[in-house]
């Protein structure tokens, strides 16, 4: 049995999902030789640290009741710098301008030779090369399945399961919020603003939806895909991005009459990385509705492979984080 001491930095939807999943899967993890002990959890203002292992159930209920995970005032970054552990589970908010605290945390972890599993797109979409070089030079693992497509296996599918294949191109729907809005606009023949408001009401879209609807989120995910799967060296600024804010219900009907849906499609191939609304034949595997995500990858040996799944959600994203953790420590 290997004991892995871990911190969870960021205790929002995803961080809490991770705590729940770790509670749920404790016995399973033990059965495959992993004893995962969370020794610290931090949110934006507070923290709980216990080298004997934080009680995850009470941390979850404390966060729910008081809004604070602990009573310590040590920051997440200080935890990484000063508390001994092997794994940092980084689930702080994405910042696509600077990389935010996530970038600081990841670099701090690598400085101390710790492994990182993250759902935070910012650092990787902005500075993929630097981050991976830092991980490599300190012998750290850095895994980030959860950054692209939530529960859908994208990175690990391409890098592990399809190992040996050359990836020719990838295209798909990587943002559930946009997919929801476009699907509902078609169903209701309603304008963009109205269906955005509905999505916000349902908690599917953020109060400030620009990150999703302008295509920035999709672009960040594509950059991570391009760098990690296609071996490119690109950053967010290399992507041409068009969002969905100009789409009209009339355009959706006209497309429908010709046998097409309109979807916000991200695509990567050797010549370009592009996010734009596209016409997708109604019978095509990429024409999924609701908040679903989907992608197709073209490979030289296996041909096309298409995966559909939930691109976001607390437990769904935690599932991707768990698979990364197991991927690192199983052997």
């Amino acid at each position: 049995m290997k004991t892995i001491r871990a911190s969870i930095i960021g205790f929002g939807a995803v961080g809490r999902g991770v705590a729940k999943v770790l509670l749920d899967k404790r016995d399973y993890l033990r059965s495959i030789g992993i004893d995962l002990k969370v020794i610290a959890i931090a949110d934006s203002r507070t923290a709980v640290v216990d080298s004997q292992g934080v009680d995850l159930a009470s941390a979850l209920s404390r966060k729910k009741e008081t809004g604070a995970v602990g009573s310590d005032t040590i920051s997440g970054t200080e935890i990484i710098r000063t508390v001994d552990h092997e794994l940092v589970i980084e689930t702080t908010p994405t910042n696509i301008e600077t990389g935010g605290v996530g970038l600081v945390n990841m670099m701090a972890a690598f400085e101390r030779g710790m492994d990182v599993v993250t759902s935070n797109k910012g650092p990787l979409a902005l500075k993929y090369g630097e981050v991976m070089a830092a991980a490599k030079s300190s012998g750290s693992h850095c895994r980030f399945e959860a950054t692209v497509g939530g529960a859908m296996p994208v990175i690990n599918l391409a890098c592990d399961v399809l190992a040996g294949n050359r990836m020719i191109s990838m295209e798909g729907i990587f943002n559930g919020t946009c997919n929801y809005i476009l699907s509902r606009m078609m169903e209701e023949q309603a304008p963009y603003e109205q269906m955005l408001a509905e999505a916000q009401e349902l908690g599917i879209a953020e109060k400030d939806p620009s990150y999703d609807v302008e295509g920035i989120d999709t672009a960040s995910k594509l950059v991570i895909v391009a760098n990690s799967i296609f071996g490119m060296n690109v950053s967010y600024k290399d992507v041409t991005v068009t969002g969905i804010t100009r789409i009209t219900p009339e355009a959706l009907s006209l497309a429908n009459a010709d046998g097409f849906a309109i979807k916000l499609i991200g695509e990567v191939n050797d010549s370009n990385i592009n996010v734009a609304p596209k016409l997708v034949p109604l019978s095509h595997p990429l024409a999924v509705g609701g908040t679903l995500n989907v992608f197709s990858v073209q490979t030289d040996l296996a041909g096309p492979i298409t995966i559909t799944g939930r691109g976001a959600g607390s437990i769904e994203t935690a599932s991707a984080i768990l698979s990364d953790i197991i991927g690192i420590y199983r052997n």
Partner: protein
Amino acid sequence: MRVSMDLELKDIPGQLVLALKPVSEFKGNLISVVHHHEKKTPRGKIPVHLVFEIKSDHLDNIISLLEESGISVVSVDEKRYLEHGAVILIGHIVHTDIKDTIDKIDNTGYAEVVDLNLAMPRINRPSSASLKIDAVSKQHMSAAIELLKSIAKEKDLLVIEPICVN
């Protein structure tokens, strides 16, 4: 490719069937037949205009078969539009001179706007349109869509093109 052909038939029964037979024999896709009964030629023949799609290597066979059965082939015009594409436009489509947009595609010689559906919800609101484009080949279709995108950029229109279907 798409072929438009002018034939002259003898004015006796069964000639039209005879004229269409070679097209179907080579699995052509008949698009239109116009029979100009009223325009008899001085030699007493009846002009017929055919439009059909056919694999290009079969065209010569069709012409020989027609001539063998005594039908005169007066003219053959190949319009090789093999690719059919659709795009959606959003923006002030009419006010930015829709005719100019279409002409620029048609003037390429390799692509043509063959259908347009326009939806204008209200004055001052952006309109939406679906455009069908025919082009000579896949490459020409991409070129036509690129051209349309550059026109759209000038006119601040959004072009929604199909995904590449593999």
